[in-house]
Each structure stands twice: as C-alpha cells, then as structure tokens.
C-alpha cells in the first residue's frame, strides 16, 4: 500500500506540475463549451416557428402572417410521425404545431411564445375561419439548447483524451526512456505500478470533469432532469473503461510514435461516431451499429438521457453493463499482455 501511494502521489504531482497538460485538460473543454454556447445562442430571427402537419388551409389569415415561419412536415411517407413533430415543440425547436389532419393545435406552456401564438390563432377562430374547429392541446417541456446537448459530448471527449493519452502514452514513454526498467529493478510489482497509474488518472479525470461541468454550469445552467449521483457513477465507469483502453496500448508498445498513431486511430472514430458534436440520427445503419461498439457512445448517450430526459439508473443500465463488461475484458487483456520492457 505504501508503494502504491508513493507512485500515486508521484504521478499526480507530475500531472499537476506539468502546467501545459494541466491547463490543456481544464481549459480546452471549457473554451469549447463556451464557444459553442456563444455560437448557437442567437435566436437568429424574431419569427415564430410553427410546424404544420397535413393539408394546410392557406386562406386562413393566420397562415398568411409574415412574422411566422411555417415548417411543413410530410407525415404520409412515415419518415416522421405527428408525435415526433410534437416532440420538437416540447424541445422548443418549434413554437407551435398545427395538425390539419386531426384539427388540433399544440403549444408548449413553458414557452413564452405559446400564449402569443394562441392569441393570434384564436383571433382567427373568432373571425369564423376553420381555426374555430381546432382543439387546443398543451405540452410542457423546457427548452433544450444545443449546449445542453453538447456538454456531455465535450466532457466525454476530454475524458477520452485524458485517459488514453495520460495512461497509454505516458506508460509507453516510461518504457522507452527506462523509468519502467528502473521500477522493475525495485520490489514493486507490475500490478501495483499499473494500479497506481490508473488510480491517479481516475481521480484526476473525474475531478477535471466535475470542474469543467461545474465551471460552465455556473454560467450556462445546463438542463439536468436526472440525478447527479447517477451521472457521476456513469462518468466514473466511463473513465475506468477509457483507462482500460489506454492500458491495452500501454501494455507492450515501446515506440511513442506508434502509440500516438494507434491512439489517434482509436480516438478519431470515437469523436466522429460517438455523437459528440452531432447526432448520428438518419446516418447509415452500419455507422450507427459501429457507434454502439464505441464506449464513448454509451457515455454520451447515457449522460444525455440522464440530463435531458431524466433517465434513472435502470434506464441507463444497458450503458452501465456495456461499459462494465468492456472494462473487464480490456483489463484482462492488458494484464495478459503487460511487459515491463
């Protein structure tokens, strides 16, 4: 235990004192989150956005208002259902939905635009247009900003880099420059050394992630419908899983160049295919299947469902099981493969 803590301390000090890496790990994700929040913050126009389902009656004065942008959804071909359109209203992507097929109109009671649009629409009804026969439906949903959706992705990406390079790359460097050889000549066991490295990284990355989340949340007030404990648990498991990937690379490689190349080979697909910056919805099925193999996908999707949909432990259980299983398998492989030299 004494050996473990000595190595844990040395590795953690190395991280904190390596100013470049330290600030890169903290500042990069913060800048990214704020950058995106700023870039997507403008309510680009003063128009109301109204979704239209079915054959619209354009003779209605409401339908001719210049201040309203009408977005028509074709629900006939099955690519989108009326429920999907209403979900967009719930997420504030639309301000109102008019369903001409079923003669209903929907507003989001948590949206400030809702009452205004209702007033305009009922004014139409008072004039005796077809609007009079529409029944009002209400949904309730907080607005999901892009940044709410993005923050799990950015934190997940930062976690991934920090774990893979902080464990994988660093141990390869130790092997190349002889630090591992020096340790091999002491009574320290490989298991003790590796656990200390992994534990130091786990604490560092979890603290960094909390700091980045809390720091940006103080200004941006992310939507959080689920439990923080659930989110922290998922984060911790995802970090352990990423460290396990790093350990597989760290177990044998001697060349930093090769390690760096291979790590990039793993991280790039995860950035693109794990839905960090954009959703894979509507992309080819094969890409979606590949994305389900990647651990980052399970963190990002799990965290989003906790934060944006209020998913509980049982709802993200499949993500927990996948990450846990993958971690166990990777740790087993790396323990078989590990060599000091």
């Amino acid at each position: 235990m004494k050996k473990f803590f000595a190595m844990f301390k040395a590795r953690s000090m190395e991280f904190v004192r390596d100013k470049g890496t330290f600030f890169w790990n903290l500042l990069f994700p913060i800048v990214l989150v704020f950058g995106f929040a700023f870039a997507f913050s403008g309510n680009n126009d003063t128009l109301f956005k109204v979704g239209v389902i079915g054959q619209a009656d354009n003779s209605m004065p409401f339908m001719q208002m210049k201040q309203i942008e009408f977005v028509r959804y074709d629900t006939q071909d099955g690519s989108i259902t009326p429920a999907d359109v209403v979900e967009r209203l719930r997420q504030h992507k639309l301000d109102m939905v008019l369903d001409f097929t079923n003669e209903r109109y929907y507003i989001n009671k948590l949206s400030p635009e809702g009452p205004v649009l209702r007033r305009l629409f009922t004014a139409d009804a008072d004039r005796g247009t077809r609007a009079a026969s529409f029944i009002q439906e209400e949904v309730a949903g907080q607005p999901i900003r892009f940044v709410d959706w993005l923050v799990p992705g950015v934190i997940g990406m930062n976690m991934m880099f920090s774990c893979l390079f902080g464990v994988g790359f660093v141990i390869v460097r130790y092997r190349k420059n002889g630090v591992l050889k020096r340790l091999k000549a002491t009574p320290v066991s490989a298991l003790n050394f590796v656990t200390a490295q992994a534990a130091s990284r786990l604490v560092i990355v979890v603290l960094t992630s909390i700091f980045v989340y809390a720091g940006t949340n103080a200004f941006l007030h992310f939507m959080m419908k689920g439990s923080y404990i659930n989110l922290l648990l998922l984060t911790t498991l995802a970090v352990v899983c990423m460290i396990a990937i790093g350990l597989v690379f760290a177990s044998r490689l001697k060349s930093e160049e090769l390690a760096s190349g291979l790590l990039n080979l793993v991280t790039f697909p995860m950035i693109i295919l794990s839905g960090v910056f954009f959703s894979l919805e509507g992309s080819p099925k094969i890409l979606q299947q590949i994305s389900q193999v990647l651990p980052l996908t399970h963190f990002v999707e799990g965290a989003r469902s906790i934060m944006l949909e209020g998913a509980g432990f049982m709802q993200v259980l499949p993500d927990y099981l996948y990450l846990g299983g993958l971690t166990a398998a990777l740790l087993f492989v790396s323990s078989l493969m590990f060599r000091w030299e």
Partner: protein
Amino acid sequence: MGMASIIEVEHLRKDFGPVRAVDDISFEIREGICFGLLGPNGAGKTTTIEMMEGILSPSGGEIKFRGHPIDQRFKEKVGIQFQSTALPEFITVKETLELFSAFYPDPRSMEEVIELCSLSDLIDRDNRKLSGGQRQRLLLGIAIIPYPELVFLDEPTTGLDPQARRNFWELIERIKAEKTTVVLTTHYMDEAELLCDEVAIMDHGKILERDRPDRLLSKHFQGVLVKIPEPGNPDSLPEGATKKEDGIEIVSGNLERTVRELLEARVDLHGLSIHQPDLEDLFIKLTGSRLRA
C-alpha cells in the same frame, strides 16, 4: 581471500535472435570486493550485468545469490544503477528519493543518502534540471536506499567530465567502505585500476581473463613497455617486439639490453617512450583493439 562468494555465475548464455551476446561465461564474486567487468562497447558487459540483476532472463546457465537462484526478495537486497535511466518527471530530487524509499521494507534514512551521495545542494531541484554528474549521483543514491548487500553500477561515469568522474569515484569508495559488494562495468581502465579489487576482461561475449589487476599485469607483462613510434627500417628487431600500426612495442625485462639491441639494429629511437604497463595495455593486448572510449 577465503571469503564466501556472494554471487555465482555458471555457464551463462544470452542470445538475441541469431546473435550470441554472452557466450557460456562462469565466475563468482567474493563478498565485500569491488568487481570490475571490463570490455569494449558491445562486449556483452551490460547484458551480463542485467542478467545478474534479474532484469534480463538468461538463454542458458544459472545465477546464484548466496547459493540460491535469484528470487523476488533478491530485489530488496540489491541496488542497481543502470547505464541510462530517465527519472520520473516534474518531481524533485528529494521526492524521487522518497518515492523509491517507499518501495523497500527497511530503507536508509533520507539524510544518510543525501550525505553519502553529496546531494544536499540538489534536494529541491527538479530531476529534469540535473547535470550529467548530478543525475548519476541521484541514481547512485536510489541504488543505495535499501542498504544493499550488492550494488550494480553499469558504466556509471560514461559521459561525465573528468572532475565529475573523480567525484563519483569518491562516492564509490564510500560505498566500498561500508563493505558493500560492488559490481562495476566500465570501459575506462583507469577507473577499473583505481576502484576494482578484481577484474574480468570481456570481449565478444566471453571472459578472456579474470584476476586481481596487479596479478593480471605481472602475468602478461614481465617488465616495462617500450614504444617507438617511428622506427625507420631496422635490420632486425629485439626479442619480444611486436609491430603495430603506430610503431613497435617491446615488452622488456632488461631495459639496458633492449636499448643496446635497438641501437645495434639501427632503430630510429626518436619519440621512444617507456612506461609501466597498465590495464589499458593489457586490454589492448587481449582484445586487439584500441579502447572505444
């Protein structure tokens, strides 16, 4: 003499692919001495010492520490200084010593290590800012932390300036004074002559000679060494003379007779030098090559 051996090497062999780096060598080292493993670069010194340290596994043969094959506990009883080691980065000399102290059940006190290796001026310095000589002192400090019964030093002064080398020899003398057995590899013969009680000269994976330095010298050189860089075209050469690229060399037991013979043979004595043969001369005689120092 008569002391028990601390480590025994029996028919040790190491192959790297088709290359046999160490070729069936056997020797034992008596407790409390400084043993020098000498040889040119690529002779197999480092491979041999790393097998003795338990870092490399032999392709054949056996190594025994106090009569038993080396095991896990062996690492608690030996101190090792590798030829080149990076130190953990971003930590200070003191923190490095603390780190390594944590690995041993009964480590030497920090003050003692600092005192023995003259590290007091450096304790708060970042490892990355140490000079070559300072680094070697810290690495020696790490090696002596466990109160080792046996210390391995692999070319500890290679690349150091003459001042730093002398300082380092002084530290090794301090460790020898503690009756610790020292195994040293070097390609500096002056270093070996000064520090070692016994040397083994290696080349091409084999041990060519092993004994006390003075005995080796008296065995191979009966007399003094006469060197003549530009002998001209002499009629004949005295007994014991060998032609070299850079002139002729004569091992002479009777200097007067040798000089007379040289004069009679009309050898140009310009630049003649006479000196007591040292390990370097022996080394060149045995390995047939100039030291690649």
